[in-house]
C-alpha cells in the first residue's frame, strides 16, 4: 500500500517537469469548474427541456422563434421587481401551451395584468433574482420570502386594490369578515390612506342589560354563545364557571334602567300561536331574522340576531317595549320602528316568547352575587377587553388591546413562535392562530371563534394583503376604494327614514344596505300616487322574491312627508319626469310596442305583462307598470338601464328612439285591472 502511494507520487511529482505538468493540469481543471457550473445550471437544463418538448409540436416554428436563451429578467425599478423567473418558466406567454400539464412550461392563466409590466413576485412572492428552483421558491437563510401558496394568491391583488374586485371573492370575503366578525374592534388595522378599518357589526351595549335579560342567561351565553344561537358571532372565551358567574354578576350590578322605562305596559302577551305566526310572516321579520326550523336549517336573513331561542333570553316586558319602539333602547339599531299597535305587540311578543329551549338554562343555578364576585367580574371584564366591542357603563374602551395587524403580512418568520408539527410559514401561522388561538399558550386572551375552514382561508388571505408593500405603495399605483358614504337625509323626512331604518335594506347615494332596491333616483322613477299607495301597503314587484318590504303602520301625514321628500330630492339629472306624457300615445305606437315586447326583444322571458300567458320570473311584474313608473324613466331605461342603475341585470339593448318610444307607449298602457283591456285594443 505504502509502496504504491510512493510510486504514484514519484510518477506524478517525481521531477520538476512532471510536477509542473500535473499542477498545470489541476489548475486548468479548476479553471473549468465555473464554466461547467454555468453550463450545467438548472435554468439551462429547463431551457433545453423546453426546446426538446417544443420540437415535436405542430407549432414548433413559432415557439422556437419566440424563444430567447440565457437568463431572462423582468426589471421594474418603480416596483422593486427583479424577476428572473422567466428563465425557467419559458412558456408563460405562449398562448398555445395551455395543454402542457405542469409548470415550468405551461402558459400563464389569463389575468388582467401583463407579465412584462408586473413581473412574477408581485403576485407570487418568492425570490425574483434567484436562478435556482430552491432559492427562488423556498425561504432560505439569506432570503425570507417563500412562494405564496396558490390558495392565498388573491392577497397580492389586495396590496394595490383597496376596493372589492369581481375576480377576488376570497379576498373580498376575508376583508368583509375582518369588519363583520369584529376582528378590528380589538386589532387595529391602519390602511395606507391613513384611515382605520371600521367594524361593521354592532355589538349591543351592555349598560342596560338587566332590563333585557337575566343573569342566568348571561352565564349560559358566556359559557357557550353558540349553544344559544348557532349563527352567533360572539366568540367563546372558554371561561370557568366561577369567571362566568362573576362577569354575569358584574354586568347585572352595573346595569342601569333605560330612561323612559319599560314596565308601564297595558298589553298582556297574547299566546295565540296562529296569529303570531301570521303577524311574524306579514311583518317580514324573516327578511332580517333567522329561525332554525325542525330540519335544522336556518330560515331567514342575517341582518338581525337569530331568534330560535329568543324566548329563553329576553324578558317579556323588555320584548314588548322593544317591539313598540326599538330605538328607545338602542338608538342606533338596524331594526325599524314598526308602529305596532298594542294588540300586535301582544301577539308578536307572545309568539316570540314561545321560542324557548328548556335545556339552555336547566343547569344554571346562581346564588346571589357577593360584592367580591362583582369586583372580580369587573376585573375580568377589563382583562378580557369586553369593552372593546360592547359599550359598558363605567369601563373605557381599551386602546390597542390586541396587536396591530396593519403589516401582519410581512411579519418575519423569525419573530413567530410555532407549535410543534406546524409548517414554519407565515400563512400557516396566521391560519392556525385564527383557528385555535389558545393553542399557542395558556393565558392567551384571544377567544375561540367558529369560523369555517373556508372563512379561515379568506381571513388569512386578507391579512396577508396587509404588508410592507401595501403600506408603502406609491399613491400612483394604488387603486383606491370609493370612500364609505355617510349620507343622511335631512329634515323631518330624514328623521322618519332613520326611524323606519330604511337604510338597513335600501341604499341611497352610496349609503345603506343591499337587500332592497337602490332608491337614489326613486323620485324620477315612480309616480307619486303609486308611491303613496306602496308606502301604505307595500306589495312585491317580483314574483319569486322571499325578502320583502314590511308594512309599517304609517299615518297619512308620515306617508305624505316621505313621498314629498322622495319625489323632490331623489331625482336623476338624466331623467326629466315631465318631458313625456303618461297618456296620449297612439294605438299604432302601443301595438308596435307590443310586437317589439313579445317579438324582437322577447321581454316576456323575464317579465310578466299578461299574467295569463307570461311567466317571466326575473324582472319586476309589469301588469301595472303604467301606474307605477314615469314614461320618461321607462324611455331612458330602454335606452340604457345600467346608466340609471349600475349593475342591474336587464341587458342594454341599445335601442333606437323609435323602438324605445313604442315600448314606452306599450308599457305605459299597462295600468292593471280594467284599463289593461283598452291597451289590448
Amino acid at each position, binding site marked *: 500500500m505504502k509502496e504504491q502511494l510512493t510510486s504514484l507520487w514519484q510518477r506524478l511529482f517525481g521531477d520538476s517537469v512532471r510536477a509542473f505538468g500535473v499542477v498545470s493540469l489541476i489548475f486548468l481543471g479548476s479553471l473549468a469548474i465555473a464554466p461547467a*457550473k454555468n453550463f450545467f445550471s438548472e435554468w439551462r437544463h429547463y431551457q433545453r427541456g423546453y426546446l426538446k418538448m417544443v420540437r415535436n409540436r405542430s407549432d414548433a416554428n413559432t415557439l422556437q422563434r419566440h424563444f430567447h436563451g440565457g437568463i431572462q429578467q423582468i426589471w421594474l425599478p418603480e416596483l422593486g421587481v427583479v424577476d428572473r423567473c422567466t428563465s425557467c418558466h419559458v412558456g408563460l406567454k405562449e398562448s398555445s401551451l395551455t395543454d402542457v400539464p405542469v409548470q415550468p412550461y405551461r402558459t400563464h392563466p389569463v389575468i388582467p395584468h401583463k407579465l412584462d409590466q408586473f413581473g412574477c413576485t408581485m403576485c407570487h412572492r418568492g425570490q425574483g433574482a434567484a436562478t435556482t428552483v430552491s432559492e427562488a421558491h423556498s425561504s432560505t437563510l439569506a432570503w425570507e420570502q417563500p412562494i405564496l401558496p396558490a390558495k392565498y394568491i388573491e392577497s397580492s391583488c389586495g396590496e394595490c386594490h383597496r376596493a372589492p374586485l369581481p375576480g377576488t371573492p376570497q379576498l373580498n370575503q376575508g376583508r368583509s369578515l375582518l369588519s363583520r366578525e369584529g376582528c378590528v374592534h380589538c386589532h387595529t388595522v391602519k390602511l395606507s390612506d391613513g384611515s382605520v378599518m371600521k367594524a361593521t357589526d354592532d355589538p349591543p351595549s351592555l349598560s342596560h342589560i338587566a332590563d333585557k335579560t337575566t343573569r342566568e342567561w348571561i352565564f349560559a351565553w358566556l359559557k357557550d354563545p353558540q349553544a344559544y344561537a348557532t349563527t352567533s358571532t360572539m366568540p367563546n372565551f372558554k371561561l370557568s364557571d366561577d369567571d362566568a358567574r362573576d362577569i354575569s354578576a358584574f354586568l347585572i350590578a352595573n346595569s342601569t334602567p333605560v330612561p323612559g322605562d319599560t314596565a308601564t305596559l297595558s298589553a298582556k302577551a297574547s299566546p295565540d300561536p296562529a296569529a303570531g305566526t301570521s303577524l311574524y310572516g306579514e311583518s317580514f321579520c324573516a327578511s332580517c331574522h333567522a329561525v332554525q326550523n325542525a330540519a335544522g336549517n336556518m330560515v331567514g336573513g342575517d341582518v338581525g340576531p337569530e331568534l330560535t331561542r329568543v324566548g329563553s333570553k329576553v324578558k317579556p316586558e323588555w320584548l314588548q317595549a322593544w317591539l313598540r319602539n326599538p330605538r328607545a333602547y338602542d338608538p342606533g339599531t338596524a331594526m325599524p320602528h314598526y308602529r305596532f299597535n298594542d294588540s300586535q305587540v301582544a301577539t308578536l311578543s307572545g309568539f316570540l316568547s314561545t321560542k324557548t329551549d328548556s335545556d339552555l338554562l336547566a343547569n344554571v343555578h346562581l346564588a346571589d352575587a357577593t360584592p367580591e364576585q362583582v369586583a372580580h367580574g369587573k376585573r375580568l371584564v377589563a382583562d378580557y377587553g369586553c369593552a372593546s366591542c360592547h359599550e359598558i357603563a363605567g369601563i373605557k374602551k381599551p386602546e390597542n388591546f390586541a396587536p396591530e395587524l396593519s403589516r401582519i403580512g410581512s411579519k418575519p418568520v423569525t419573530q413567530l413562535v410555532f407549535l410543534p408539527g406546524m409548517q414554519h410559514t407565515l400563512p400557516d401561522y396566521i391560519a392556525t392562530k385564527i383557528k385555535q388561538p389558545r393553542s399557542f399558550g395558556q393565558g392567551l386572551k384571544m377567544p375561540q371563534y367558529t369560523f369555517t375552514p373556508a372563512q379561515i*382561508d379568506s381571513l388569512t388571505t386578507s391579512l396577508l394583503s396587509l404588508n410592507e408593500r401595501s403600506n408603502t405603495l406609491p399613491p400612483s399605483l394604488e387603486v383606491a376604494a370609493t370612500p364609505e358614504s355617510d349620507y343622511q337625509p335631512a329634515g323631518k323626512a330624514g328623521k322618519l327614514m332613520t326611524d323606519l331604518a330604511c337604510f338597513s335594506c335600501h341604499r341611497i347615494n352610496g349609503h345603506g344596505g343591499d337587500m332592497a332596491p337602490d332608491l337614489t333616483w326613486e323620485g324620477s322613477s315612480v309616480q307619486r300616487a303609486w308611491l303613496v299607495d306602496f308606502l301604505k301597503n307595500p306589495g312585491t314587484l317580483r314574483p319569486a322574491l322571499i325578502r320583502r318590504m314590511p308594512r309599517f303602520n304609517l299615518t297619512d301625514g308620515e306617508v305624505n312627508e316621505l313621498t314629498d321628500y322622495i319625489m323632490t330630492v331623489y331625482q336623476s339629472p338624466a331623467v326629466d319626469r315631465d318631458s313625456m306624457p303618461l297618456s296620449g300615445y297612439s294605438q299604432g305606437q302601443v301595438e308596435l310596442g307590443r310586437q317589439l315586447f313579445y317579438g324582437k*326583444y322577447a321581454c316576456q*322571458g323575464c317579465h310578466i305583462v299578461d299574467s295569463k300567458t307570461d311567466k317571466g320570473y*326575473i324582472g319586476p311584474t309589469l301588469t301595472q307598470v303604467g301606474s307605477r313608473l314615469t314614461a320618461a324613466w321607462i324611455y331612458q331605461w330602454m335606452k340604457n338601464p345600467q346608466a340609471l342603475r349600475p349593475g342591474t341585470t336587464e341587458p342594454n*339593448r341599445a335601442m333606437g328612439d323609435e323602438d324605445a318610444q313604442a315600448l314606452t307607449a306599450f308599457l305605459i298602457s299597462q295600468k292593471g285591472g280594467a284599463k289593461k283591456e283598452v291597451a289590448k285594443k
Partner: protein
Amino acid sequence: MTHVQSTIHVGTGAFARPAEQSSAAVPRSMRYGFLLAAAILLSTSCSHQHTTSSEPKPTAFGAAIVESSGGKQVGQTGGLLPQPVVVQVNDAQGTAVAGALVEFSAAPDVVFDPANALTDSSGQVTTNVPLGGMAGRYQLVASTSDKSHKKVELKIEEIALGYQQTLGRRLNDQYCERCHNPESTVERVSNYDNLEVKPHPFTDGDTLNKISDADLTAIISHGGPALNKSALMPAWGNTLSKSDIQALISYIRAISDPPSRNAGPVYAKN
C-alpha cells in the same frame, strides 16, 4: 446515478421536481459531493420516516366504497371546495361498515384534511379538500382495503377555476344563471321552467362543446337570433365587455360535462 438521486434529497427537499429532470442536479452534486455519504444515509432514513406516518388501524373491512356527496364540485384554484367530500364504505351486502380505513390521494398539491381516517358509525368519512394551484379538473381517489387486503378505489372528479373562470362564474351568477340553471334554491328561484324555449344548462357539454367559441361569442353578444335561435336569449354585447364574454366562455368550458376539448388536463395522482 445514486449520486444524482441523493442530492435531490439534500438540495431541494421542499420542492417536488419531476423525476425526469433530476439530471439537472449533476452540477449541484459537485458542490455537495463531499456530502455524498451523509446524503445517502439521509435519504434512506427519510424514506423510513415517510412510511411510518400516523395511520389509524382499521377495525373492519368493507367490500366497496361509494360517494355520498361532494363530487363534481366547482372550486377555485388552491381554494377549499365549497362542501367537504364524503365517501361511504359498504360491505358486500351494501350495508355501511364502521371502522374501515379510507385513504385519499390526488395530484401532489391537493391536500386532504384528513388524508386518512376510519369510517364513522354510519360508515362515512368526511374530508375537506383544497384543490391544487392549476385550473382544471382534479381526480381524487378514495381507497379502502377489503378483507383480503386488496385495494378498492373510488374516483371522484372536481373542477378548479382559475382567475378568468372565477370572473366568468360571477357574471354567470349575475346575468345568466336564473335562466340557464334549471335548479332553484330558496334564495334564487329558477326561471328555466317559465321559458318556452329551454336554454342549455352550462354543464350540458353534449350541446355546448359542439358550439365554437366564435359562435358562443356571437350568441352572447347579439342574442339568440344571431344564430337562428330563440329571441328569448337577449343580446348582451352592450352590457358585457369583450373580456367579460371571454371570461364567461372560459367558465362554460371549464364546467362542461362531458369535458370540452379546451378543458385542459386532468390532474391525478402520479
